[in-house]
């Protein structure tokens, strides 16, 4: 077989193949979007906690404690934990997107499931911490 018969090494790429190589595949987009819904719910929970926990009654009497001179009873909301809980789903989703780049679909799914499990686990840890102090 001659080189002419086998054709050139770099074959011309059709428009459909080129488009598939340029953009992400449909399956990956669906998985990423579906995962985003679940991560969005985690984000919603975290924002709800960020708003509602500081309104808890135990954080409302600080001015009174200050006036009567018992500063030791004053308590401040666990801002660091609440903010970390808000950042967690966003960071995990972006991390999963970075890890899932240029991988087969099943690995993309696995990356997002692992990231979602991480968010679920760490969120419960943060919840337990906020309620324990």
């Amino acid at each position, binding site marked *: 077989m001659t080189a002419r018969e086998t054709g050139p090494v770099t074959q011309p790429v059709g428009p459909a193949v080129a488009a598939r190589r340029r953009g992400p595949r449909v399956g990956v987009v669906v998985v990423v979007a579906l995962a985003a819904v679940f991560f969005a719910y985690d984000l919603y929970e975290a924002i709800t906690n960020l708003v509602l926990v500081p309104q808890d009654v135990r954080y409302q009497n600080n001015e009174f404690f200050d006036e009567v001179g018992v500063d030791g009873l004053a308590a401040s909301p666990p801002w660091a934990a609440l903010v970390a809980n808000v950042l967690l789903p966003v960071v995990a989703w972006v991390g999963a997107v970075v890890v899932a780049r240029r991988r087969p679909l099943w*690995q993309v799914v696995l990356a997002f499931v*692992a990231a979602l*499990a991480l968010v679920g*686990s760490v*969120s419960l*840890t943060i919840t*337990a911490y906020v309620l324990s102090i």
Partner: protein
Amino acid sequence: MTDPSPARPEAHKHDEHDERDERDEIDEHDDALSWGDERDASHVEGPAPVSQIGPEADDELPGGMSSASLVGHGVFGGVALLSCVGWLVSRDQFLLSFGGSAVDRVQTALWLLGVALAIVAPAVWFVTTILLVPQSRSSRRLLVFAVGAVALAPWPLVIGGGA
């Protein structure tokens, strides 16, 4: 001191003869137990020994994983399983229900999905790390294992707060 008996030298000669015979016999046994070398007519050159394949071959098992990495996999796999058990034990403090309306039911379902994922998270992280981080990057794999072991430990068991 007395001289040895006249029969002694003869006996000594006998002994020497016996010893030589015995040595010949032993040599034959040794030959049977050895594989021979290049000078042997039946010698066939086999593949190079494993230890000569590469510079790190001494440290590598036939599967391509170093023994330290293998031990790391075992340790972190055990930690992941124990963490799953820890989450399973502490699940009761997180089993919530938000109410009866449709929206509340969706919220409850999503919350319980989160709890279920938290229970299996250590095992999922372990398996995902093995499948997504190539075996050749064993140090990165062990690092990801370690991050998972710390982040996904059943901390609510230690902290004690309930939802």
